[in-house]
């Protein structure tokens, strides 16, 4: 967009090194950003991108190296200095208080804490101007908790702009957006660049990096391994640079669908706080088939996962397993009915960090023989089961007595996979199974899911990553506001077409308002 050679340097990192214990998260990284430029910081999970940006923003102190903004060195470990120098950060996990209004969130911390009153009128005026300039429409008096994810991101950007940021750092900003919302975001960024701002765009999505950035920097294992103008690379080259080798994703052959193992018929579940429940949803999971569930996060995926996982029961409608309605639906009944559940958050719901591998391996089955008989535990049997998982699923660890919290995300996920797949499940609920894993672990998990499918299991894959959904699924549904689109066979839809559904268009008028008889065949 601009000529890098002549524009002045607005940001310069010089020899940044950061160690966490023995791990070197950033190893002597140097880079510079020019006025009006968009650079992309590309790398796998754990490559050190977020650490680097936290150092730039002053949330971490680097062990070595300096950060220079507009020619001035920033004092280390001082987010305030970074903000004042014109650095604005849009975090991957939004830093907004749900219970407070947009205006309150934006003005938080912009005045001296000793000031006796809040400047509100001036703030409104400035925000109105910024909204117009950058195309960021949002209602200032709305509680943040009531906003959509896309709107919240706009608030995050407004927050930075309100503080007169000249450099915007966006950490994985598209992870939670629909393709259309991503386009809107890019439009905003282009406007910002035209107005002379500079942007650091952190991502691992190659096509987005290609679409928005002028220059790409690639991090691997904490080191800056390559720096290329975007014109000189393509997606394949970037992928190879990112992982340090040719990528070999598992080949996906189409599955052969069998009988319907689980059937949801016009199911409604209660809303969960801000997240919608299921609205008159019908869905069939077939043996030997991966059903992909695409959608923007917070549109009912959690409700569907909770339903199938046994945490909630249908409010109305029918849920059938093998043609019969299960009674006393609960997590335990779900497990005993042959449902394998890979939870969305392996740290919070999948494992107990302070428990060792053995105690985690039997978490779902501890109450049955051979692990438990008339109230007594048989730890020897539990441990031999755990050893079997460790061997079969290649869990790298010192032994079954290791606390699971000390394992890497990939190894933790392998233990969870082993825990649920060893029971030869007939239905697999995989909720974000590869989030936060490096490519090696991603391929391993995908390979296991495909193998399970080929053995005849019905797999429900829930993911916010459209690429993952499109690569693996035999049939794709889109979920929006708790409603489900028709199933689209593999290869039928383009990402843009799915994006229309993800944005909530194409659904019939609200089904809940129709007569029940309208659904009768």
């Amino acid at each position, binding site marked *: 967009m601009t000529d890098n050679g002549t524009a002045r340097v607005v940001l310069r990192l010089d020899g940044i090194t950061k160690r*966490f*214990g023995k791990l070197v998260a950033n190893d002597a990284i140097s880079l510079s950003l020019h006025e009006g430029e968009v650079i992309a910081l590309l790398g796998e999970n754990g490559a050190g991108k977020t650490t680097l940006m936290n150092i730039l923003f002053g*949330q*971490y*102190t680097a062990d070595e190296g300096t950060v220079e903004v507009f020619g001035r060195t920033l004092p280390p*470990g001082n987010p305030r200095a970074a903000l004042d120098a014109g650095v604005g950060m849009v975090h991957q996990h939004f830093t907004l208080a749900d219970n407070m209004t947009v205006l309150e969130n934006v003005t938080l911390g912009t005045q001296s804490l000793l000031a006796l009153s809040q400047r509100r009128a001036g703030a409104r005026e400035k925000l109105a101007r910024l909204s117009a300039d950058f195309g960021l429409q949002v209602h200032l008096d709305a509680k943040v908790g009531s906003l959509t994810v896309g709107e919240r991101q706009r608030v995050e950007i407004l927050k930075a702009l309100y503080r007169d940021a000249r450099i915007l750092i966006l950490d994985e900003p598209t992870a939670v957006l629909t393709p259309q919302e991503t386009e809107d975001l890019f439009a905003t960024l282009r406007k910002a660049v035209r107005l002379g701002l500079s942007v650091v765009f952190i991502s691992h999505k190659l096509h987005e990096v290609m679409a928005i950035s002028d220059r790409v920097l690639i991090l691997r294992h904490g080191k800056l391994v390559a720096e290329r103008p975007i014109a000189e690379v393509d997606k394949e080259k970037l992928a190879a640079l990112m992982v340090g080798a040719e990528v070999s994703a598992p080949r996906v052959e189409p599955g052969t669908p069998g009988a319907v193992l689980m059937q949801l018929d016009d199911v409604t579940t209660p809303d969960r706080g801000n997240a919608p429940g299921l609205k008159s949803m019908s869905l069939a999971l077939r043996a030997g088939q991966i059903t992909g569930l695409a959608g923007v996060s917070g549109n009912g995926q959690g409700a569907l996962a909770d339903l199938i*996982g*046994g*945490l909630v029961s249908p409010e109305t409608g029918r849920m059938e397993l093998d043609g019969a309605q299960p009674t006393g639906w*609960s*997590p*335990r009944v*779900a*497990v005993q009915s042959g449902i394998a*559940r890979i*939870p969305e958050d392996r740290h*919070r*719901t*999948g*494992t*107990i*960090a*302070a*428990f060792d591998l053995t*105690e985690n391996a039997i*978490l*779902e089955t*501890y*109450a049955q023989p051979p692990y*438990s008989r008339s*109230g*007594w*535990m048989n730890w020897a049997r539990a441990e031999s089961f755990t050893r079997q998982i460790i061997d079969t699923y290649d869990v790298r660890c010192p032994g079954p007595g290791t606390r699971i*919290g*000390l394992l890497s995300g990939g190894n933790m996920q392998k233990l969870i996979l082993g825990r649920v797949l060893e029971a030869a499940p007939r239905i697999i609920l995989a909720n974000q199974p590869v989030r936060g894993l490096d490519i090696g672990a991603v391929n391993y998990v995908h390979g296991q899911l495909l193998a399970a499918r080929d053995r005849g299991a019905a797999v429900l894959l829930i993911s916010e990553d459209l690429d993952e959904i499109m690569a693996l699924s035999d049939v794709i549904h889109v979920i929006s506001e708790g409603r489900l689109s028709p199933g689209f066979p593999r290869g039928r839809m383009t990402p843009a077409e799915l994006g229309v559904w993800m944005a909530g268009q194409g659904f019939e008028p609200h089904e809940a308002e129709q007569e029940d008889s309208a659904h009768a065949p």
Partner: protein
Amino acid sequence: MRLEPIARPTIWRSTLPPAIAIGATVVIASLLAMAAGGNPFSVLGLIIKGAFGSKFALLETLNRATPLIFTGLAVAVAFRARLWNIGAEAQLYAGALMTVVLGTGLLPWSGFALLPVLVIAAMLAGALVLLVPALLKVRFGVDEVVTTLLFNFIFLLFVSMLLEGPLKDPMGMGWPKSERLIAEARLPRIVDGLRLHWGFGLALIAAGVIWVIERRTTLGYEMRAVGLNREAAGFAGIPVNRVLVKTALLSGGLAALAGFSEVAGLKGNLTLDLSPGFGYTGIIVAMLALLNPLAVVAAALFVAGIFVGADSMSRAVGVPSYLADIMLATALLLMVVAILLTRFRVVRE
């Protein structure tokens, strides 16, 4: 500052912080003793001597430790499942109340038959008292810290009401106290001639039983899982609320045994000063023991020793015996920091 977990702590890492915590407690106590005009060395010496220095002192300490083992176990069991039972005091009085209701002649049985019945009845009473806050927690989400705390006040007033009403000893010269237990309801001494009753033996057995429950039984596994990560436990299919209620019953029952043992083993009747805060001190005992049931015994002996020793020191040199409470509160606060530092190191960002 930031806390960074340590994967494999060295021996120094695991021992030095707790040692410093104890050392600092001693230093603070010494300074306070000096403020009271005492010589710190002789004050501390007198505390140790008063607690463990003679057969009489030792027996006194063991007697004082007995209710603390029970309340310490009660708190340890509850805290393990992250059920904040601060109401051991009320549960203790519930156990004592049941003991005097049934043990003052209502059940004219032999000791062989009567004592087990009293144990079970006392435990049921204590369990019932904690059941109410536990149900309020699982049904309505009411924080059990406040309800169990408030129950302590309510229950003590309730006991006071009974002691001035239906349970009042007609021979008590107007004092609010119950009739004395019949001889069959009294716990015998472990060794004839030594002032130590079977309540202490019962406490040791209880500690062993709780240890086995936590390590070897399904319920113990469930309790630990619920305490460490309620969300993951629920997701895995552990019936979290049912486990919490079971934990409450067990915890309340244990605390009630403290009341039973004090009445049946030591006092012989129920008065309003039966417990000088054994229920609250149980929290310190449990925390110092890191919630480990076997360590509860050691912690209870330590805490009881400080109380008994401080009483004896106070009589000798006039430094107020509240020094013991200060030492324990300080030890508790410093120890939680010390335990943290055995597992995390403080680093700059």
